[in-house]
């Protein structure tokens, strides 16, 4: 090796006896060891699945085997919709592969305006603002809306993007116990009179698939003079008469100040958004850093999103079939004897509680080998240190597929000893 090849950053190249700082990766040693121990037992990596081919919203090829997808959040099955695909192809031809810029510079194309129009129409709001991901929408809203003298009051089980948005901003952060109306009421009652208040709720909490008592929570928030944001990432498309989300079904549309959502679930592509009727909403485009300092979505993505959103508005039959699937899977799993996170199907996520990591991974693998892919979730992503297998249903799952899925769960449950 010549002198010029040597990397001065490489500790191996340092002269002996030279004291460097601690290896920055040493804080991950416990996690690396835990993962190695798990994979050494010969199981497949639940966080490293590769789909070689995707045949439809509900089928993919994994390790050469046709596998039913039951963990994709592709609730409305829009990813292979012919109109959606066609819109994306057309936008690629007409506008190119990417914008190479921020929304506030060269990154706003006709398609970005069209998808914001589609959102305003879908939600019936005066304003819509599209972000590059749902994560960034929460990052932007939390960090920008509430300043140093303001309070953000959030559910303890809030999504990582909400917590991270709070960390990015300067507001005072107060937590209340998950879905606990009385706990929220008490904490709002203890806030000092000065300072703004933003209560952050989610329609569906994605780990357990439980929904928030939005009617009561929004009422309490408004009584204490707070603005309310509801994240409908896992509710858009199939709650409420227009598929707007849990807040629509709860009848609190006129009380909610901001709705956050994503294109990466029911809409079937990637992107995030906030809709609102606040008259000053537009100023966020100038002051919201996760909106300003990042590249906008590619033209094909916003074209597919706009087409998909327009179709979701009229997707009543799909909504109905998704709910049938969800209720049937929940009942079937419960009848087989699995321990489920909610007493009935509250959303399109059905979470199965398992005792520990070892059992959960073995069950996950048995299911995959039988031909169905579900999500494994573990702490710290889960509440109360739970180990979960999560199923998310799709409107395109056929009744026959749900029957197959239940048979695979029965087989895997017996083979792993989860079912007695």
């Amino acid at each position, binding site marked *: 090796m010549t002198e010029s090849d040597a990397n001065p950053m490489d500790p191996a190249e340092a002269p002996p006896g030279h004291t460097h700082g601690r290896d920055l990766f040493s804080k991950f040693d416990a996690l690396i060891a835990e993962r190695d121990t798990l994979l050494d037992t010969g199981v497949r990596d639940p966080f490293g699945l590769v789909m070689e081919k995707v045949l439809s919203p509900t089928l993919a090829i994994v390790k050469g085997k046709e596998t039913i997808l039951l963990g994709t959040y592709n609730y409305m099955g829009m990813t292979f919709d012919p109109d959606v695909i066609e819109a994306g192809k057309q936008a690629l031809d007409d506008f190119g592969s990417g914008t190479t810029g921020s929304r506030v510079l060269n990154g706003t194309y006709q398609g970005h305006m069209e998808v914001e129009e589609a959102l305003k129409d879908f939600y019936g709001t005066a304003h819509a603002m599209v972000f590059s991901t749902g994560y960034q929408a929460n990052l932007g809203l939390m960090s920008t809306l509430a300043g140093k003298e303001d309070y953000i009051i959030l559910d303890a089980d809030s999504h990582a993007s909400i917590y991270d948005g709070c960390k990015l901003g300067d507001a005072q952060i107060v*937590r209340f116990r998950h879905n606990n109306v009385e706990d929220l009421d008490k904490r709002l009652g203890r806030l000092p009179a000065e300072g703004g208040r933003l209560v952050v709720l989610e329609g569906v909490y994605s780990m357990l698939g439980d929904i928030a008592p939005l009617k009561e929570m929004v009422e309490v928030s408004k009584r204490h003079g707070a603005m309310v944001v509801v994240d409908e990432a896992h509710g858009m498309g199939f709650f409420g008469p227009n598929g707007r989300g849990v807040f629509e079904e709860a009848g609190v549309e006129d009380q909610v100040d901001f709705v956050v959502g994503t294109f990466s679930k029911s809409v079937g592509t990637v992107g995030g958004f906030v809709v609102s009727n606040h008259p000053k909403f537009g100023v966020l485009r100038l002051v919201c850093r996760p909106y300003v300092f990042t590249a906008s979505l590619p033209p094909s993505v916003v074209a597919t999103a706009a087409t998909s959103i327009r179709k979701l508005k009229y997707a009543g039959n799909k909504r109905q079939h998704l709910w049938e699937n969800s209720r049937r899977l929940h009942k079937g799993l419960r009848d087989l004897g699995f321990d489920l996170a909610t007493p009935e199907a509250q959303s399109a996520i059905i979470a199965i509680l398992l005792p520990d990591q070892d059992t959960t991974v073995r069950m996950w693998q048995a299911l995959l080998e039988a031909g169905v892919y579900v999500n494994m979730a573990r702490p710290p992503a889960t509440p*109360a240190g739970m180990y979960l297998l999560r199923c998310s249903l799709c409107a395109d799952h056929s009744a026959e597929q749900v029957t197959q899925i239940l048979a695979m769960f029965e087989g895997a449950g017996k083979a792993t000893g989860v079912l007695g």
Partner: protein
Amino acid sequence: MTDREETFAKVVQLIEPFNKKDVELTDSTTFAGDLEWDSLIVMDFVASVEDEFDILITMNMQAEIETVGQLVDSVEELRNDG
């Protein structure tokens, strides 16, 4: 007992259900190090302290509190503010 001693005694009482290893509790006992609490226990415990004293301990403040003594001082301060 002084006010601070009373608050200390009350805080110790609230820690007990989460003190699985019977760690001796003094002003200098740390939550992360000595009591080995994770974020889930912290959440439950903070909520119980808030409800006991009818105060709010924001996450911003929680980040600065490492020991039992610091928590007792913060509770005292918040009660006098309110």
